[in-house]
């Protein structure tokens, strides 16, 4: 039959390939070529002209004059309750911890946020060091109500313009009893991650992507960088499987794909609550702890509302409420007097006392953050 008609302009761009080729062919489909190679695309179905100006692309931007909080998880629960308690309207932007910090960096020339509230107080301190937080000497009244755990962090620099709010373990040592010997794991402690018995059966979240993973991995570097590298190199040699975040680690562990892992406390107790096949060991060498912390943007236009938000987060009532909502992140230890942790947390069947969290020096952790993260990223040994 005859050659298909092509204009000379078409000939000029013959078969330019592209990611858009998919769409080009889709165009033909929409044009009515279906199921039979060999109809011509001359469908004669017209369309009305569309005026681009009439198009509303959805709710477009966050309002400048309303308090905007970038936080990690339990967004709506906080927004409703805060406005009920204080009458102040608030826009919550709920992203993963890593995304929040990256977004703040991308917006540095033009910040859209007023308050940040994320897991990993070292990261918040870094924002403070870089001058991105409002530092006008204000301290919340409720800072006087920190409990002992809270003091451990707050007293390192009581003038700093950021505040720890709650604490949990960025990683607990967990194992699946169906494929890991309980006594062996208890005996080894964290070294179980590099024990040849679990070769190829060890999992962890990727510190390059998952927010809580950095406080976890950096905890092993604090006494000596070399020991830290040696430890994790062994873990990599042991065939560790890297996951994008903590949820898939928990799932792989419950399914028996992996036997041993460091898993964030909220995920761990989420699985415990579901009765999954997960056991926890609190090793003798300790359990790392990291606080969720909050600070105010140096660029904020609603400083008073932001301060009210910080005060409200440090209320015992608020923290008690957050341990009770139906949410993955109710498993934390409050840092203010008068609030109790969620009842599943220690003391419990795994540990007969309150968790002895160990905090790294957050200034140090911020200094070595890029180095350690880059090292982990470069260990991609697939």
């Amino acid at each position, binding site marked *: *039959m*005859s*050659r*298909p*008609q*092509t*204009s000379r*302009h*078409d000939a000029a761009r*013959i*078969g*330019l*390939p*592209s*990611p*858009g080729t998919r*769409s*080009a*062919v*889709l*165009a033909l489909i*929409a*044009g009515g070529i279906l*199921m039979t*190679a*060999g109809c*011509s*695309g001359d*469908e*004669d*179905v*017209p*369309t009305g*002209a569309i005026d*681009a100006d009439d*198009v509303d*692309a959805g*709710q*477009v*931007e*966050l309002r400048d004059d309303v308090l905007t909080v970038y936080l990690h998880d339990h967004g709506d629960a906080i927004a409703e309750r805060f406005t009920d308690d204080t009458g102040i309207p608030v*826009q919550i*932007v709920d992203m993963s911890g*890593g995304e929040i910090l*990256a977004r703040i960096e*991308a917006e540095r*020339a033009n910040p859209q946020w007023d308050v940040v509230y994320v897991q990993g107080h070292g*990261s918040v301190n870094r924002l403070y060091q870089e001058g991105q937080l409002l530092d006008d000497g204000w301290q919340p009244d409720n800072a006087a109500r920190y409990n002992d755990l809270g003091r451990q962090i707050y007293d390192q620099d009581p003038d700093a313009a950021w505040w720890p709010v709650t604490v949990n373990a960025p990683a607990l040592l967990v194992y699946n009893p169906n494929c890991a010997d309980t006594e062996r794991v208890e005996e080894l402690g964290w070294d179980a991650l590099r024990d040849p018995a679990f070769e190829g059966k060890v999992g962890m979240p*990727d510190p390059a*992507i998952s927010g809580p993973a950095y406080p976890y991995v950096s905890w092993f570097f604090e006494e000596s960088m070399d020991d830290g590298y040696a430890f994790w190199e062994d873990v990599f040699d042991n065939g560790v499987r890297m*996951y994008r975040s903590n*949820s898939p680690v928990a799932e*792989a562990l419950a*399914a028996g*794909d992996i036997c041993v892992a460091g898993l964030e406390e909220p995920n761990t107790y989420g699985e415990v609550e579901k009765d999954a096949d997960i056991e926890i060991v609190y090793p003798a060498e300790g359990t790392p702890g990291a606080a969720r912390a909050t600070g105010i943007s140096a660029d904020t236009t609603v400083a008073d509302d932001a301060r009210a938000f910080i005060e409200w987060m440090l209320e015992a009532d608020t923290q008690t409420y957050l341990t009770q909502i139906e949410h993955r992140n109710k498993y934390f230890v409050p840092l203010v007097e008068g609030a109790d942790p969620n009842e599943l947390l220690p003391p419990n069947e795994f540990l007969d006392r309150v968790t002895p969290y160990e905090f790294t020096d957050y200034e140090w952790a911020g200094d070595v*953050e*890029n180095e350690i993260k880059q090292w982990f990223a*470069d260990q*991609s040994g*697939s």
Partner: protein
Amino acid sequence: MAWAVTAALIVLVGLPLAAMLAHLAFPQLYLGSLQLGNFDLFSDLWERSLWRNAVRNSLLLGLGTMVLGAAIGVGLAWMRHHWRFPGSGLIDFSAWFVLVMPSFIIAQGWVLFARSGGTASLLGIPWAGDVIFSLPGLILVMSLANFPLAYLAFSAALQWDVSRYEHAARLSGARPWTVFRAIRLPLLLPALLAAGILVFVDTIGDFGLPAAFISVFRFPLIPYVIRTEIQTVPVSFEGAAVLAAVLVSMVAVAIAIQIRVLRGGGRDFLTAAATPRQRPRPRFWPLLSAITFAFLGLAVFAPLGTSLSVSFMERYGAGLSWDNLTLANYQAVLSSGSALLPALKNSFGIAFAAAAIALVIGFLAAYLLAYSGHRLRRFIDVASTVTLAVPGIVLAVGYIFWWNQRWLADIGIQVYGSGWAIALCSAAASVPIAVRVLLGAMSQTPGSFLSSAALQGAGLWTRIRAILLPLTLSGLLSAGLAVFATSVFDLAITTMLQPPGFPTIPVIIDEHFRTVQYEWATAATVVVCLITAAVIVTVRFSARRLFRSYFETTTETSRS
């Protein structure tokens, strides 16, 4: 008008890509500082093992898929166009079907299929995971997702009826093998190469597959590493720019090869009108049918059947049994308060805006290219095709670099941080499609029609409204719906540009998938696919009803 189109293309395409290149030299540009960089990062391509691995993996995956994907596509096309056998139409069906499916949806299906406790192990093939989660497995998955490009390219070439040459050769005494070697093969070679290059380029820039696979299998590929450079701490805009430049160079090399080979006689397989050749039914037709059904099962049913089945499961991994079947996932996805509903509004709004913008610009650009000798023509020609060669993830990075600048915010332009960034970027990515489709339509409308109307005193608008619009309506509709459907599901652009507090469909599905809420993610996918299909069908049906007169005019012209 030419100036307006040029300005629009500069804003949509030129400035973002220029901003990206500028960041190679001035890494602090996004902070508003013109400090010259030290170009150290280029050496990181060799020194940082993550980058080295990503570049190597991308090349291996691209080349492997090019070979396997093209082999699958070419083999199927050969079967389909040389023999008649029951089920041959299914090959076309699976090619189209796989083509319109967003790659991350297909990849998610494969992950669910091959995971431990997934469909494969329920079917008694527990080793599927070890096969799929490896480089050869990824090449297989990618080939099954991208073979339609090769299939269509090659099908178009096979429809050239060159039997006259063959008969002439046979009459001159050539043996069948000689005819094949001296006549058929040289004629098919460009199509063979085009098929391979198409698959290579689409594979190397694909963001959907690494995004879906990364939750279970760590295999660094350039598009995903670009994302992590910008969206994880430590943030490195410069790193993203360097990797984006590397990716674009790879694509450019591939295209350069293709242009060289195709020079001097191209064929545009995408608008090819096909004429089925005489196809005998061979003795071994059961074998052909068997291959077809097996292939359909592998390419379509394994990934998408898995996703569909998971959407009806109470618990993924518990298998398909009566007591594990539920409609609860659909209830959760569609109930008020579901994360999907605001995302639906946003994503469909964005897709609608992107389609409108791409259509307006595409129509005007095609008009200028087809009928005018304006001196800006050359620029419009290049600018309206360049994004074909730029992977979505790279274009999105350019958008961040350009629109996320303080001085723009200071004069009240807040594109970055609003849905418009996604809409504009999707439109920019789609302009080439709109231009190509509309040029195809306009090439069948002689310029003399417009000239004679002009002689009668019709103004430009009248000429467009009364002659060109009716004649190109089907093209407009096709292009518009294509842009609409792809924009709804564009994960790469959306994930990079999604403003805080502005949920969108692809990101929400990806998030749920990443946090192992497979049941919700698959149910949402099914719902969105159905809605999108319904929109396309409705628009086409109502357009046909509304413009019946146009419809009749067009048939008459096309007969003449």
